[in-house]
């Protein structure tokens, strides 16, 4: 009986740990997935697949490192883009008509959020993913390098360039 109780308790602990992990990391993972995908449905699919795969790779139910999930999202996004290349442009244009908001700002920050999203959209993909992983993903350059499969120095220089470009584009609101 005790064994059953402890088993249930163990499962409940893991469930709440899983919930905590999701609450902490899912928003930033979704932000990254949205930047990697062409539409919201693809982004959600990327996130779900990557999270499940990362969790499956872990031993003894230990939650996965966010860097691992970021890397899985990126690899799956590349695969998805290859599959989607044959889609009609008309379909993609229709999907991009209403892009989701990447940030959840306060009322007064709404304009800033829109400007930052626009500025991020104008960055080269390589710089955008580094700056996203650094600022909102909270990863170190070493972790970014591992997730994106690039040297850490490259990650750092891309971040520096991205920050300069963001500074130039958002000069009006961030003084």
């Amino acid at each position: 009986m005790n064994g059953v109780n402890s088993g249930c308790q163990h499962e409940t602990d893991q469930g709440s740990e899983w919930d905590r992990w999701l609450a902490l990391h899912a928003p930033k993972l979704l932000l990254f997935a949205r930047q990697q995908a062409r539409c919201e449905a693809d982004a959600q699919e990327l996130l779900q697949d990557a999270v499940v795969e990362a969790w499956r790779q872990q031993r003894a139910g230990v939650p996965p490192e966010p860097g691992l999930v970021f890397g899985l999202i990126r690899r799956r996004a590349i695969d998805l883009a290859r599959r989607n290349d044959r889609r009609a442009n008309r379909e993609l244009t229709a999907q991009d008509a209403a892009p989701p908001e990447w940030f959840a700002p306060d009322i007064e920050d709404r304009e800033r959020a829109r400007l930052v999203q626009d500025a991020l959209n104008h960055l080269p993909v390589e710089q955008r993913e580094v700056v996203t992983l650094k600022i909102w993903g909270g990863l170190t350059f070493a972790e970014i390098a591992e997730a994106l499969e690039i040297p850490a120095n490259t990650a750092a220089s891309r971040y520096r360039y991205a920050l300069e470009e963001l500074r130039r584009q958002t000069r009006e609101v961030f003084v």
Partner: protein
Amino acid sequence: MQENLDPLETELRRLPPSAVPPDLMARLRAARVEPEPARSAAAERAVRWWDWVIGWRGLAWATPVAAVWLLWLAWRPAAVPGRVILAEAHGIKADAVQVDHSLIASFDTVAQMPDGEPVRFRCREWQDDVVVHDGANGVLITQSTPRVEVVPVRFETY
């Protein structure tokens, strides 16, 4: 350790990523993979032994083949060295053999040696045909083989 942040970085960090839609969050919660329960050492050994048995299962068909082979080894007639049993020689006795070579193509090509010296090659493509006819057994064998002949041509000849 608090790193020294650029003011822009600080401003950017103030923008939180938007929340995950409730339906997606529900799917993620439901997608949790249950860890496998730990096995006891005895159960682990049993599983390993069973895996080993399952691994050899694919070779079960070889058992009767091996038995037949062993029986044949035990009962086969002893071979006598230097003696050929003519009754067992079922070779073809050809009453007509025809060999033919056809020139399919002929051309010259020029290549360069590593030191830049030009070398001309004469290339010929042949088709070799062999026809063997055994009228007694009603057997006709034809074989057609392409052959390429490449011969370097000396300077003096061109």
